[in-house]
């Protein structure tokens, strides 16, 4: 007797299911089940993953969901047809939308409304006596479903036999057939402990205290057919097959239409896209369209028409046109974005003539799936674009895709340890003591350090369960900007639920799910650098008195490249990180395409594939450029014969290993998702065999495979680099030729990028930019430019720099000053601009009242003395005799600067300590480049960055700042272990080590790290820790 499981939860029923969808599907298939229904609780979030797994193993997958009533009774609905599926989506949407995020609520009426296409199963609560079931069950019997059943599950409970009799009687009375359901919560018996842990997490208790709120045994797994035959009467098993046979709907049949309204009446989408393209070509090439471009565009349009992607391109063009009309800087990137069509539509500025990118390479004909375009917007104005999309298509047709938040190590430890009943102190200490990068291997050691034997039973359980739960979905969150837009209401396609932000809705699928089903998605992302560039351009325009836009930046400016070659790139997009800074002098970019490489090279792909050093050696002429074969020369000639881009690797797979375009594309998609589905092994075999067969060395093939793995953890194709490189160039040009406007633009867009304001300001000052302090008498809210004595642009810090000051308060001060003149004193400021005492204190602390009240202490004392007198008495508070407060010392001012502004325009903190540092015989950062490589040096500085790239085998990179610049440290794991506290906790360090000085790149290889934070006293210095 065969069996189909009709009631099964995955771990997308958060804190209830204890197996991944694919585990369940694979297990059901290997046990010989005829079909498996996934019926997560009021959710279809895991269904696409189950679908993919089911297609792979050839198991029929039934789609459904289950709903729980307060008394514990449940209804499971299965969708036999697309119409039923739509009803299911709408029911889930209703249940989710009328309840707070993460929960659902359904009334009985909601079922009565529209479920007439679905198959319904009634599962009475386990603990209810048959008599209690009569009333709700007879309500169920009256529901207008296509078919109704009573679900009976046998879990070896004491009353199972009695229950079967009672349900049989109930079924006879109500005329409902009985069907066997497994009520599966995990795929194998061994998951029982993990399920208990999840129950404890859900109930906020410990596993020992769950008791009767949990299951009495581990029978709720996918049991072998032989066991089921022993437990269930044959007719109950037979009914499962009947039901399974009625279900013919599959997600592959999902029918999706692009929104129609972008096409004017009387035109087809294709005609409209052609018209827009023609118009765009005339704008791009007013002197006449180059023949090569015209034929390229014709080819692309033909391909787009063939694959029916016109609506997708029109949608993207429309969003970009809206942003342009509102003066919001934006830029598209991604495979299709760098097509000639996107260039003429204005989606991107990457001139296809400068790149050899072919659209068809990225829109594969073999897969019917939309091309991928990401659009970056200024980070503080993206919301306007999102509101535009919601308004244009309506909330029922546009929604954000979901992001599945999964258990990471720290949260896993916290939750599992709590569930095991470990003392809260220990749980906290354990979770906190782990650095962001500590691997699972460190856990036993950490336990030991906290006085907890890692070999003890509890520790062993903890380690095992943590390893199991990592990667489990925890909840749905909204994707950063992936919009799904549809012609018909989205809720007919996929359930929609509430997001954490008010008025935001998300669909229950994430971007990989959408990819798998081929749904249209436009990523609207926020990019801080675009804000900074727009602001810098505006400041420059205003200062020069004439408009200056991105288009006015001259191409291929030698001075800009000279600057980058020196490794001076603080604040420049993408290449400001410390790894990039040390790469620039080696790679010596001299052209736009060099920048494309620069952006793509410091990525896991090229690093893991071991491609960085070969490329550098060849570029520097230390190694001859050669090609593995003549075919590969075509692919690799622009990168000295070394594959660096994802696209090149894909092409190699096709050319050198005989993959078809569709197969190569599958590899690309598996790369992005190999953590989700696990395993690229099948491709490895084929790749290696294919390449060796065609005469390539095995080592080269292995390198290519490693590179594929590396791209998987952070795919970064040339098509994205190309767009990013434009911004690298623009921001570098601004830094080189308009440094004041550039740094002001960055400060006004902060938080963004890699550096704190203090470091941006210090760097600009080292480059000769003059700064003026925050002053209520002359500062705007933003940082502004003012003319210096020689007419050069200087920066006036804005009120936004004052720590804790709200924008509204700052604007009020500026507005009142502009409309009614300068402030006479602190009292006048308080009364005219309505500034409360607390805000005055912030201003005083930041030194912004100096022009009104003298030094900081006097200003603060005056601010405290402001009185709010009512009505007529306002502004008449008694005069006080002036207080003689001593001016703060330089050190005290510095302290106050950092507290109130986060930066100082006075001397650098290290300059004040220089006398003491000289006695320790430390060098200045600026001296390092003049010293010979290999000697032992001692450097001191404030820790500004700590970084531990996953690709650097445990090395920590640190940056120390002193009054002359930055010194770069390399700290090997051995030193980290010995001086962990200093390496990860200190704000100021004195470090001894060996100096490495090569090609303009200086490093100190730390051998001794000493924490000197106490020398800084209460100075708050911001350090930023990165992965």
């Amino acid at each position, binding site marked *: 007797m065969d069996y189909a499981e009709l009631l099964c939860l995955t771990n997308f029923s958060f804190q209830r299911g204890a197996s991944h969808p694919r585990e369940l599907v694979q297990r059901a298939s290997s046990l010989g089940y005829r079909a498996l229904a996934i019926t997560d609780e009021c959710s279809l979030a895991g269904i696409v993953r189950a679908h993919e797994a089911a297609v792979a193993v050839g198991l029929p997958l039934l789609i459904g969901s289950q709903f729980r009533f307060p008394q514990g009774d449940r209804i499971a609905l299965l969708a036999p047809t697309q119409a039923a599926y739509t009803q299911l989506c709408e029911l889930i949407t209703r249940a989710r939308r009328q309840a707070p995020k993460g929960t659902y609520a359904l009334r009985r009426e909601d079922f009565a409304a529209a479920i007439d296409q679905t198959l319904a199963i009634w599962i009475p609560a386990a603990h209810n*006596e048959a008599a209690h079931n009569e009333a709700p069950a007879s309500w169920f019997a009256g529901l207008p479903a296509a078919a109704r059943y009573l679900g009976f599950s046998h879990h070896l409970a004491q009353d199972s036999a009695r229950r079967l009799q009672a349900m049989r009687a109930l079924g006879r009375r109500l005329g409902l057939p009985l069907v066997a359901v497994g009520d599966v919560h995990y795929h194998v018996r061994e998951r029982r402990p993990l399920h208990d842990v999840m129950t404890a997490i859900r109930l906020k208790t410990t596993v020992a205290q769950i*008791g009767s709120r949990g299951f009495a045994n581990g029978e709720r797994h996918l049991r072998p057919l032989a066991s089921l035959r022993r437990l269930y009467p044959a007719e109950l098993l037979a009914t499962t097959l009947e039901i399974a046979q009625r279900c013919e709907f599959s997600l592959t049949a999902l029918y999706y239409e692009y929104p129609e309204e972008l096409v004017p009446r009387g035109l087809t989408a294709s005609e409209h896209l052609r018209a827009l393209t023609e118009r765009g070509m005339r704008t791009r090439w007013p002197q006449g369209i180059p023949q090569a471009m015209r034929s390229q565009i014709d080819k692309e349009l033909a391909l787009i028409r063939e694959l029916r992607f016109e609506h997708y391109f029109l949608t993207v063009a429309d969003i970009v046109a809206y942003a342009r009309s509102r003066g919001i800087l934006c830029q598209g990137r991604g495979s299709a974005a760098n097509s000639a069509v996107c260039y003429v539509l204005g989606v991107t500025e990457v001139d296809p003539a400068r790149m050899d990118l072919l659209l068809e390479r990225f829109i594969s004909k073999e897969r019917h799936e939309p091309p991928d375009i990401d659009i970056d917007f200024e980070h503080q104005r993206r919301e306007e674009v999102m509101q535009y999309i919601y308004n244009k298509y309506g909330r029922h047709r546009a929604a954000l895709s979901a992001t599945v938040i999964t258990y990471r190590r720290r949260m896993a430890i916290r939750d599992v340890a709590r569930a095991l009943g470990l003392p809260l102190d220990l749980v906290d200490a354990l979770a906190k003591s782990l650095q962001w990068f500590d691997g699972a291997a460190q856990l036993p050691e950490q336990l030991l350090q906290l006085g907890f034997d890692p070999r003890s039973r509890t520790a062993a359980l903890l380690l095992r369960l943590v390893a199991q739960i990592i990667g489990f979905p925890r909840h749905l969150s909204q994707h950063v900007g992936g919009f799904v837009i549809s012609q018909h209401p989205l809720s007919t396609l996929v359930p929609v639920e509430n997001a954490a932000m008010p008025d935001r809705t998300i669909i229950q699928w994430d971007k990989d799910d959408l990819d798998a089903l081929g749904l249209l998605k436009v990523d609207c992302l926020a990019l801080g650098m675009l804000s900074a560039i727009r602001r810098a351009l505006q400041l420059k325009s205003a200062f020069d008195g004439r408009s200056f836009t991105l288009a006015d930046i001259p191409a291929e400016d030698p001075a800009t490249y000279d600057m980058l070659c020196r490794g001076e790139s603080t604040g420049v997009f993408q290449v400001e990180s410390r790894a990039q800074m040390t790469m620039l002098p080696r790679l010596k970019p001299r052209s736009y395409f060099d920048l494309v490489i620069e952006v793509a090279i410091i990525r896991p792909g090229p690093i893991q594939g071991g491609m960085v050093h070969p490329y550098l050696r060849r570029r520097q002429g230390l190694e001859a450029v050669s090609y593995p074969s003549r075919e590969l020369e075509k692919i690799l000639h622009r990168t000295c014969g070394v594959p660096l881009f994802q696209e090149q690797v894909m092409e190699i797979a096709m050319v050198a290993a005989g993959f078809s375009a569709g197969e190569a594309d599958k590899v690309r998609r598996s790369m992005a998702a190999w953590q989700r589905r696990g395993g690229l092994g099948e491709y490895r075999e084929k790749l290696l065999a294919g390449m060796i067969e065609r005469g390539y060395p095995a080592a080269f093939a292995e390198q290519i495979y490693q590179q594929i793995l590396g791209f998987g953890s952070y795919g970064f194709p040339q098509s994205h680099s190309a767009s990013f490189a434009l911004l690298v160039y623009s921001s570098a040009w601004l830094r080189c030729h308009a440094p004041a406007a550039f740094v002001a633009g960055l400060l006004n867009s902060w938080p963004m990028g890699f550096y704190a304001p203090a470091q941006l300001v210090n760097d600009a000052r080292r480059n000769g930019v003059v700064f003026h302090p925050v002053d209520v008498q002359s500062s705007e809210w933003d940082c502004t430019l003012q003319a210096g004595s020689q007419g050069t642009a200087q920066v006036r810090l804005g009120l936004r720099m004052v720590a804790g000051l709200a924008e509204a308060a700052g604007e009020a001060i500026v507005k009142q000053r502009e409309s009614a003149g300068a402030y006479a004193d602190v009292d006048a400021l308080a009364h005219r601009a309505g500034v409360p005492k607390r805000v005055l204190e912030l201003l005083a602390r930041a030194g912004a009242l100096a022009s009104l009240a003298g030094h900081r202490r006097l200003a*603060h004392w005056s601010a405290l003395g402001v009185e709010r007198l009512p009505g007529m008495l306002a502004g008449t508070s008694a005069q*006080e005799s002036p207080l003689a407060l001593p001016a703060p010392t330089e050190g005290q001012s510095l302290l106050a600067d950092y507290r109130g502004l986060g930066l100082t325009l006075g001397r650098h903190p290290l300059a004040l300590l220089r006398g003491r540092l000289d006695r320790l015989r430390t060098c200045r950062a600026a001296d390092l480049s003049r010293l010979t490589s290999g000697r032992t040096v001692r450097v001191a500085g404030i820790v500004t960055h700590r970084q531990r790239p996953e690709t650097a085998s445990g090395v920590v990179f640190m940056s120390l700042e002193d009054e002359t610049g930055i010194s770069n440290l390399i700290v090997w794991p051995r030193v980290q272990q010995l001086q962990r506290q200093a390496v990860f906790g200190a704000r100021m360090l004195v470090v001894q080590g060996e100096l490495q000085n090569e090609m303009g790149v200086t490093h100190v290889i730390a051998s001794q790290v000493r924490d000197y934070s106490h020398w800084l006293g209460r100075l708050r210095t911001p350090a930023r820790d990165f992965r």
Partner: protein
Amino acid sequence: MLWISVLLPHLPVDLREPAPSRALAVTAGIGPHRCLLACNAAARSAGMTAGMDVPAALMREPALELIQRSKADERRALHGLACWAHQFTSDVCLDLARWTLWLEAGASLRYFNGLHTLHAQLKEGLTRLGYTASIGVGPTLEAAAVLSRHRDVLPALNFRELRRVLAPLPLSSLLLQRAVLEQLQTSGLCTIGDLLGVAQASIGRRFGVELTHYLQRLLGERPDPRRRHRMPPLYRRRLDFAQPLEVLEGLLFPLRRLLQEFQGYLRGRDVAVQRLTVTLQHRNSPDTTLQLLTSAPQRDAQRLFALLREKLERTALPQAITRIILTAQDFVAPQIIQGDFFDDHARRDDSWTALLDKLRARLGPDAVRRLGLRDDHRPENAWCIAAEDQADLTAACNHPADGPSAACLPDRPLWLLQPTPLASLPLLLGTPERIEAGWWEGEDASRDYYLARTAEGARWWLYREVGTKRWFLQGLWA
């Protein structure tokens, strides 16, 4: 008036039994806000400071022993000290929140041969009691308190000296709210002298009259009425141990401390005692009571200690000691108090609880037990000896509707046995019930339970271990 202020900066740890070798700290707050309130010398030398948060402290010193703060213990300790201090003066004030005692010394100076001797005697007495104290002397209470925060500052004997002594001290020595202190420091005022140089109107305008009033009390420009500590007519002092004392030696220090405090009390009242009761309490045994009747009135701590020690050594202690209570009521002159102070509780109903109480009183608390339910699938873990305060049998099972509730507990035999291996099987009835639980305790039970009937007609409850397939008898049905 001349006030001596006694600040006890480590009161919460000092009031515990002394254990100089292991690091000990008292904590306050709960969860993530839990932090160290006070540390003993060993902990301080390991780098622990008050205010440190608990995980940070445990990171540095995993062996650190933590005790949760007990305000009641602090109150009892400070009251005990106040009683003791009455031997120096009749004017004693205390502030529980500030861990501070004040003694008015003006009247007693001559009796103690001047301030220096008084100071020395006070200090020595406190050390012998096991307290770290820091002492300040000034013409007002608040001034003495400020000076007590500084080790090397001379006493201020009059108001003229007071201003001079206070002027160079940092503002942080004053009793200021944290925010006010920060405001003053931000304005560049660092010392008490700086603050006293500012016009009071300017201060009031910025920080309110609370601060000006405080400064006036500090300088004696405003009266500072306080409630004085009164000596109780009956003496009762209780001391709780965080860790029950296992050995007699551990009891000696606390006992000596109690007797020394008591001696101070006796001296302060100028009386002696003839009858003294020491009650030792245990967690699960009846109290051990030691009655000390001296032939002659006594008030010497050493003598009392020796007598009690002797008595203790002849007493068999049933269990570790959790609490010690010293009571005395029969004092010789000036007056004698009679009547049973402890016996006028309201009479209880002669009901079930009264019966239980009587049984407990007669047989001891351990002899009377009540059964309770525990929520666990394993039958042997599904019951327990109920805690004293557990209200009724079903309380443990009242869960929300998420799972089975108490109303529908599964059928279980009333008579449970220790699982006994079975050699031969009786007749099995019906289908098995599978129970699996307990993996978190190391022993993961996985059993199939059956109802069975023996040849004699008895009904047994058996199970078969799923893994080993061995059979056990665990219950008998009525």
